[in-house]
């Protein structure tokens, strides 16, 4: 008797329902997913420490080893490494971390589970963009703090330069993030994900002027690098944080802000199309 009474009460009470009866919008769900992604990210201590310290350690190593004046440019090698490592940090928080983490989520079948709910795909992608915006801003702020205090990189003084910084950051980060979502479909399993993602990222850093200054990288390598967003992200950040006298180091002898905007915007659009066309919710062996 008691059992029966309890069951009946539960049956009635679990029917309580929320919601307004309409399917929630992708934008609002994207915000919720973003908040959840950020919370999950910061609960994984190793990942947080690794992600944020990697570019800082590299900046410290390169900028401390190479610190001479660069001929006729009015800047030191250390100063060149500050925007370079900021660009690298933006790409590692977006391209590298998404490329690996989404491959892992797919392998663990967390994506398949989401696909079984009415959550729109756009909300998932938006959530990832919010996550990388958040971590990217933090990473960039840390590198900027180190660069200005240790290596005498001046902060921009004009509002126009800060504005340039803002759009270069957002376009570069978004483009790299979409490229990261796209490459996450390449690895066959979570185990191979980091190799598949890290190798192209390493190569790009060599041919885009991150580790080696653009005036030392062979022209054909730079041309290859110019097909991807990292080279333009580096160039834009040099334009923001270095004096105009350093333009002499550039391939074109100029910062080329217009072309940077064009290439990065093209990567945002093309990367989105690539994601929508190639994104898999299941691994290959799940069919």
């Amino acid at each position, binding site marked *: 008797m008691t059992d029966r009474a309890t*069951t009946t009460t*539960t*049956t009635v*009470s*679990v*029917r*309580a*329902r*929320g*919601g*307004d*009866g*309409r*399917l*929630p919008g992708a934008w609002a*769900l994207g915000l*919720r997913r973003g908040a*959840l992604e950020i*919370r*999950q990210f910061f*609960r*994984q201590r190793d990942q947080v420490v690794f992600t944020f310290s990697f570019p800082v350690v590299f900046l410290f190593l390169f900028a401390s080893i190479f610190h001479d004046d660069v001929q006729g440019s009015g800047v030191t090698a250390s100063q060149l490494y500050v925007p370079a490592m900021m660009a690298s940090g933006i790409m590692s928080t977006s391209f590298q971390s998404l490329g690996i983490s989404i491959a892992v989520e797919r392998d*663990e*079948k*967390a994506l*398949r*589970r989401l*696909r*079984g*709910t*009415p*959550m*729109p795909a756009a909300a998932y992608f938006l959530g990832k963009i919010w996550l990388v915006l958040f971590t990217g801003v933090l990473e960039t702020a840390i590198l900027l703090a180190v660069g200005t205090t240790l290596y005498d990189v001046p902060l921009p003084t004009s509002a126009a330069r800060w504005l340039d910084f803002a759009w270069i950051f957002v376009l570069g980060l978004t483009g790299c993030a979409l490229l990261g979502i796209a490459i996450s479909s390449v690895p066959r399993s979570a185990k191979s994900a980091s190799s598949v993602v890290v190798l192209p990222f390493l190569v790009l850093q060599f041919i885009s002027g991150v580790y080696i200054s653009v005036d030392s990288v062979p022209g054909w390598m730079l041309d290859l690098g110019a097909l991807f967003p990292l080279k333009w992200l580096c160039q834009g950040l040099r334009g923001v944080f270095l004096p105009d006298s350093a333009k002499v180091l550039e391939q074109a002898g100029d910062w080329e802000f217009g072309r940077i905007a064009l290439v990065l915007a093209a990567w945002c659009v093309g990367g989105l199309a690539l994601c929508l066309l190639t994104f898999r919710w*299941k691994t290959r062996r799940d*069919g």
Partner: protein
Amino acid sequence: MIGVMTAHGYELAVDVRGLRKRYGDVTAVDGIDLGIRRGEVFGLLGPNGAGKSTTVEILQGNRSRDAGEVSVLGADPATGTRAWRSRVGIVWQDESAPAELTVRETVRHFAHYYPRPRDPEQVIGLVGLEAKADSRIKSLSGGQRRRLDVALGVIGDPELLLLDEPTTGFDPAARRRFWDLIRLLADEGTTILLTTHYLEEAEALADRLAILAGGRVVAEGEPQALRDRFGTGAAVEWTEPDGTARTEHTETPTRTVAGLMRRFDGEIPGLRVSRPTLEDVYLRLTGQETVR
């Protein structure tokens, strides 16, 4: 809400005709017909590799099919819209939920995906995870994770719940608790399709069941009716005066017993007359019958 009415007046939640699916040279599903009525618990029973999971994945909209017509809640799952997905709950076979989040955070978050979700706190209570509500998912035991899977499957208040081998790896007590949960959901009117290779589970839960073997339905009906239809005959066991145990399989057990009564004076030692169990029927139909 538009369903298919059968000739017998049942409204079908799931209607499958001539379903086929091949993986390379292997035919996983070889022409299956299924009709699952609204509000019933339907068991899909069969050994590993019989095509159960493939069938359920096609019904979920997570796998393509090679041939056949499939209607789930009036729509083709292959082209299921968001609105359709909000009416179908899925409990996966081997699933991972976000390890770093707590049970409460996850259930609350999933509720936001649906137009008319159940109350997250009550769903956590329904699956018996109140005590673990603030624990990270990575700290849950296997059974607790499965209960979380069920919570995420029902949070959207689905009309149809698809469960693929939900109790694999459960201890007997956890399985009983899980059965109670399924019965509770069924009492509320949820149509439930569950696959299992545990016969007692199908018998305990299912209003009707289909037995699959080699990608085909070899029997379908109420458990009792299946037993009556396929489990003909009986086994009569007794002990001879010299102590040897005898068993005779017969269509006419009463006649056998009458014969024994004439031979023995009084009690027949060790007499036992047994009808085939559903398990015997199942093993025979799926070609796994053991030699007795």
